């Protein structure tokens, strides 16, 4: 497949790297020559210098032959122009636009409707809000993804020293949780990430991802020794687009929210838009104010300012002051991993989430939903099993799935089944498959092949 990526910032370059790794032909358009040179050196892609809103530049980048167009410059307006030109002038079959402003999204959708082809807008802020909202109900988790219509949670937890999990053989999980079963689907140990099998055991310090039936969540948390805040109050630092949206969504769920904002005007505007939320004018790192507002009783502290380093510092402070969990927005991939090791519970990167959504869009059609874990090293794919699919027929052990691929769960009717090697997949099932990202293309081919 040939992909054209307009804009070579963090989103564009990460996306291009992912697509190139999946063996797609990628062309990047970027106006900053120095950045472009770096991209040409680091990635196996073609680069074109110029402004992506110019027809001539797009033509030079081969837009006429491209199968999918990504507009991911830092400007909403430019992205709209690029995406709509791609649809209207060049009939690109699939178009993705990165838009941050809600009203832009609406205008884009209105115009796109009248043009041919498939369109999607990805809103990084929206994606970040959704991510945080999915994390909040699962204490202790560093990452949460739901699959199979919400009937299955994939959540990652650090395995603490001295917990019941330390030294436990994976195959013994079935003894602890006979029904509904809990399955370990991925483990990160030091620098290594892998899809485990029954003979592996948990070690202290592992980051383990479990496939959990939502009803069983309480028991898992108990065994992990996860502690909860005494009060259900979420504290948000920074009335940025993400912070404000998050407060509004939590309000709508009747949760108690405190919002810290340093800038008076911004704080006033936020207070005007919110109803029950307590808006406090203070810096995110103001210790006295945090204590005064009872950070030690908060169930979660979410740092949402536009400054990644400030977010990290605020989270460290909140944790030290006793907040049960701390989440930080960090839009710097180099920092993400390190920050996790500092004791911040989860790091959310709007831009990397955008990349994940864009990649999912490319793969959609063959798969129903997809998600990546652990900085993209492990991939989850949900597929609808149709008649003639290669997944149907022999028992799982004899199916010949690509190496290191695991069938985590099946949704059959209303029941979630965690299958063993002797079980079979039936037509009409929804299957959740897990593999390492290096083999995702192989899995795609297997699932797509008839």
């Amino acid at each position, binding site marked *: 497949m040939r992909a054209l990526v307009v804009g070579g910032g963090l989103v564009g370059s990460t996306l291009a790297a992912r697509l*190139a790794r999946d063996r797609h*032909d990628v062309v990047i358009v970027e106006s900053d020559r120095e950045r472009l040179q770096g991209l*040409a*050196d*680091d990635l*196996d892609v073609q680069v074109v*210098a110029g402004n992506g809103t110019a027809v001539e530049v797009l033509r030079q980048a081969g837009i006429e032959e491209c199968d999918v167009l990504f507009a991911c410059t830092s400007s909403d307006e430019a992205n709209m122009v690029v995406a709509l030109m791609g649809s209207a002038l060049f009939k690109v079959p699939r178009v993705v636009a990165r838009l941050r402003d809600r009203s832009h999204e609406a205008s884009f959708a209105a115009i796109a409707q009248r043009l041919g082809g498939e369109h999607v807008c990805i809103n990084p802020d929206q994606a970040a809000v959704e991510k945080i909202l999915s994390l909040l109900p699962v204490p202790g988790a560093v990452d949460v993804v739901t699959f199979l219509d919400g009937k299955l949670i994939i959540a990652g937890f650090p395995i603490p020293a001295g917990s019941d999990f330390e030294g436990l053989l994976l195959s013994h999980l079935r003894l602890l949780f006979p029904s509904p079963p809990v399955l370990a689907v991925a483990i990160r140990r030091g620098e290594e990430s892998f899809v485990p099998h029954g003979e592996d055991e948990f070690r202290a310090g592992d980051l383990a991802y479990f496939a959990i039936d939502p009803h069983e969540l309480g028991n898992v948390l108990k065994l992990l020794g996860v502690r909860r805040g005494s009060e259900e109050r979420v504290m948000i630092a920074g009335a940025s687009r993400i912070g404000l949206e998050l407060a509004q969504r939590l309000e709508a769920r009747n949760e108690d929210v405190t919002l810290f904002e340093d800038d008076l005007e911004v704080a006033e505007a936020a207070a005007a838009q919110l109803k029950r939320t307590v808006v406090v004018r203070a810096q995110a790192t103001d210790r006295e104010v945090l204590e005064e507002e009872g950070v030690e009783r908060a169930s979660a502290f979410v740092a949402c300012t536009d400054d990644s380093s400030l977010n990290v510092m605020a989270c460290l402070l909140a944790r030290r002051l006793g907040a049960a969990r701390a989440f930080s927005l960090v839009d710097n991939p180099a920092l993400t991993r390190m920050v996790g090791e500092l004791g911040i519970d989860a790091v959310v990167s709007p831009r990397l989430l955008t990349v994940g959504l864009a990649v999912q869009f490319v793969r959609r059609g063959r798969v129903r939903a997809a998600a990546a874990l652990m900085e993209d090293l492990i991939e989850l794919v949900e597929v609808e099993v149709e008649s003639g699919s290669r997944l149907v027929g022999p028992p799982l052990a004899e199916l010949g799935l690509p190496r290191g691929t695991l069938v985590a769960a099946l949704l059959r009717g209303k029941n979630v089944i965690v299958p063993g090697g002797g079980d079979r997949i039936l037509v009409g099932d929804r299957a959740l498959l897990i593999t390492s990202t290096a083999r995702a293309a192989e899995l795609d081919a297997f699932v797509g092949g008839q």
Partner: protein
Amino acid sequence: MNRRFDLHLLGWLLLVVAGLLLVPLVAAVAFEDAPGPFVSALLLAGVAGAGLVAVTQTKERNLRARDGFLVVSGAWAVTSLVGALPYLLSGSLGPVDALFESVSGFTTTGSTVIADVSALPRSLLLWRAMTQWLGGMGIILFTIAILPLLGIGGMQLFKAEVPGPVADKVRPRLAATARTLWGLYVGFTVAQWLALMLCGLSWFDALCHALTTLATGGFSTRNASVGEFSSPAVEWVVIVFMLAAGMNFVLHYKALTGRWSDVVRDVELRYFLAVVGGAAVLLFAVLWDQGKGVHDTVRAALFQTVSIVTTTGYVSVDYELWPHAAQFLLVALMLFGGMSGSTGGGPKSLRILLALRSLRATVHRFIHPHAVVPVKYHGQVVSDGVLSGVAAFLTAYVLLAGGAAAVVTAAGYDFATAVSASLTAIGNVGPGLGAVGAMDNFSSFPAAVKLLLSACMLLGRLEIFTILVLFSRQFWRH
């Protein structure tokens, strides 16, 4: 640096070279030459390569710029050594001569130490032509095209091997780019092979000359080079294909995919053709009073100009019988070279073009001290980084040429021999003047000079810096 993976790549490269040695081996059997030298060379390269590949398995496959320099320099050194084995093992040449001939082959220089080329077994002549053909488009690029080895960072190898200050991809993926470029190269070679056969050459002579023309190499199967065929038709065919080989292969790709306007508007191409045309007219004017007739004079002037500018190094007539002005012109042309992205050597026309434009800008600044005078290329301002890179390259080029010439004079040779020998080696041209003139060869030089000139050829082919950085102490620090 990822030295383990660097060595792993070198191991694969040895295996590729071993595979390529099958061709002259089969030819030796077919021609009833002794196949022994090729069998031994193949086994040596194969065993060494397989061993290296086996002991350097690694998951870490990223390459940095430094790895690019190390792998490419190492690859060319190793390939040259393996390439020398058939000459050495067949007893045709001694160790130093064999190495010189091999380096001269892979770097597409075309200088030879063999006095009587026609006496060599045909399988060895084929290998000699093949070394040039492989070196022309690049042995690394060949490996990238056929083996899916590289992860991120393959571009570092591409940049370190492709001639010219910029390396353009014609396709989004490097492996596809390598395959496209090699495909074009093979296509041109076959076309010339057929054209030469139509002109009456035997299939073997036609093949060997097609291989060495497209590489801008210049090894011939005859002692008097292309001139020995005494065929105007052959010379015209060779002129056309030498010109094609001296052009940027990205432009050939654009022409074949119908983007003619990009080709016609290419500034470097126009400049390259202007240099060739201008020099040919000058040469014609100098040669006119020799009274050889219009067609013969035009053809001789054009053939020799194109041969030297593209750094092929074929000879159609003994130019040492020409006036001194004509001989000087030929040596001066060695300082131009082919286009960037071509198989030609020399400093490359793009660098000369940019240097001339900076020169003009500098003069302009002297006249208008406060003027803002950017250097432009294709309507875009060329960054100072690129310009100083060009200046540094030309400085290094001239220093290297001067130093090498000084050593040759110290070995007791005259000025014309020394200067032309050093320029022809660094520019990967082939013949020179004086003791290394059109009808002479390099065998009379002492071993030390041969080794020095071999080093110059490698430095010239890899555009100096790829090798030069290896001699920086900082390169080896972490």
